[in-house]
C-alpha cells in the first residue's frame, strides 16, 4: 500500500520534472541568451529544489541533507545566473530585437562616466 | 529491469557525450570547445556513477569539468581565442 508520504513526495517530484521539462523547452525555443538563462534558472529553482524536497519527504532520513542541498542551491543559483548574464552583457552579446527594456546598459554607462571623472 | 535501465541511460548519455566531443573537435572557437569538453567530462562522471564508482565520479566532476576547464580558459585568455585557417572571425 502506498502511504500518504510517498504520494506527497511523488507530487513534489512530478512538479520538479514538469519544471525541468519547461526549462529544457525554454532553452530550445527562446530567442536570446538572457531569455534562455531565465528559463534555465527557473528550471533549477523550481525543478531541482522541488525534486530534492520530494526525495526528502519520501525518505525522512534524507530530509536534513535535502534541505541543505536546497539552501545551497538557493544561495548559488541566483549568483551564477547573475554572473553569466553580466558576463554575457559585458562581452557584447546583443539583446533580442523584440526586447522592451534594458536598464543595465544606461546604468553601466553612468557608472563608467563617474569612474572616468574621479 | 535494472539492466535495461542501465543500457537506456548509457546509450542516451554516451550519444550526447560523443556528439559533444565531435563538436568540440570541429569548433574553431576554443572557448566553446572547452565548454563542450567540460560537458563531456560531466557526462563521463554520470557514467562513472552508473558503473558504481562514486569516488571516481566525484574526482572526474571536480577535476575534469571544473579545474581543467578553468586552466584551459585561462590559457586561452593568455593566447588567442580562435583557431587560424579558414579566415573567419
Amino acid at each position: 500500500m502506498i502511504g500518504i508520504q510517498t504520494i506527497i513526495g511523488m507530487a513534489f517530484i512530478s512538479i520538479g520534472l514538469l519544471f525541468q521539462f519547461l526549462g529544457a523547452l525554454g532553452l530550445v525555443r527562446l530567442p536570446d541568451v538572457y531569455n534562455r538563462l531565465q528559463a534555465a534558472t527557473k528550471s533549477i529553482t523550481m525543478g531541482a529544489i522541488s525534486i530534492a524536497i520530494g526525495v526528502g519527504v519520501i525518505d525522512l532520513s534524507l530530509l536534513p541533507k535535502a534541505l541543505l542541498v536546497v539552501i545551497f542551491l538557493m544561495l548559488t543559483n541566483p549568483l551564477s545566473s547573475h554572473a553569466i548574464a553580466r558576463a554575457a552583457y559585458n562581452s557584447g552579446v546583443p539583446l533580442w530585437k523584440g526586447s522592451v527594456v534594458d536598464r543595465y546598459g544606461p546604468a553601466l554607462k553612468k557608472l563608467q562616466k563617474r569612474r572616468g571623472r574621479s | 529491469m535494472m539492466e535495461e535501465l542501465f543500457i537506456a541511460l548509457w546509450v542516451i548519455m554516451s550519444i550526447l557525450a560523443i556528439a559533444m566531443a565531435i563538436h568540440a573537435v570541429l569548433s574553431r572557437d576554443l572557448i566553446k570547445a572547452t565548454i563542450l569538453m567540460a560537458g563531456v567530462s560531466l557526462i563521463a562522471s554520470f557514467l562513472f556513477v552508473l558503473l558504481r564508482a562514486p569516488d571516481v565520479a566525484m574526482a572526474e566532476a571536480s577535476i575534469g569539468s571544473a579545474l581543467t576547464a578553468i586552466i584551459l580558459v585561462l590559457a586561452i585568455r593568455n593566447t588567442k581565442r580562435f583557431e587560424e585557417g579558414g579566415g573567419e572571425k
Partner: protein
Amino acid sequence: MEVTELVVYGSILLLAAVGIWGILSRRNLIKLILSLTILQTAVNLLLVSVGYISGRSAPIVNGDTGLDGSPIGEIVDPLPQALVLTAIVIGLATTAIALIVAVGYYRSTGTLELKSWSYGPSNEKEVKK
C-alpha cells in the same frame, strides 16, 4: 558477444576515436591538448568499465552490508577505480604543464598553429611576424 558489451565498449571506444582524431587532424596546440583530455576521459571510462560487475553495489560497505563478514560477491572491483583516481589527478598535472608550454610557444612565436612538426617557428614569415 552480448548487446551490453557492444554498447558499452563501443561507445567508449568511439569517444576515444574522437579524441585520437582530434589529436591527429588539428594543428592548434590548445585544441590538441583538449583532444588529449577527451581521450583521457575515454580511457578512464574504459578502465573502470572493466571492473564493473552487473547487479552489485559500489565498493563501500555500511552498517547494513557485511561490516563483519567479507563483502565478496556484493561489490564491484575496487582496484581499477583506485587506479583511475590516480590517473585523473595526474592527468590534470600533465594538462597544466602542457598548457603552460603552449602559452610559452605562443609568446615566442606569436601563433598557436603547428605548421610543421618541428620545434619553434617553422618558416621565415612567422619569425618576422
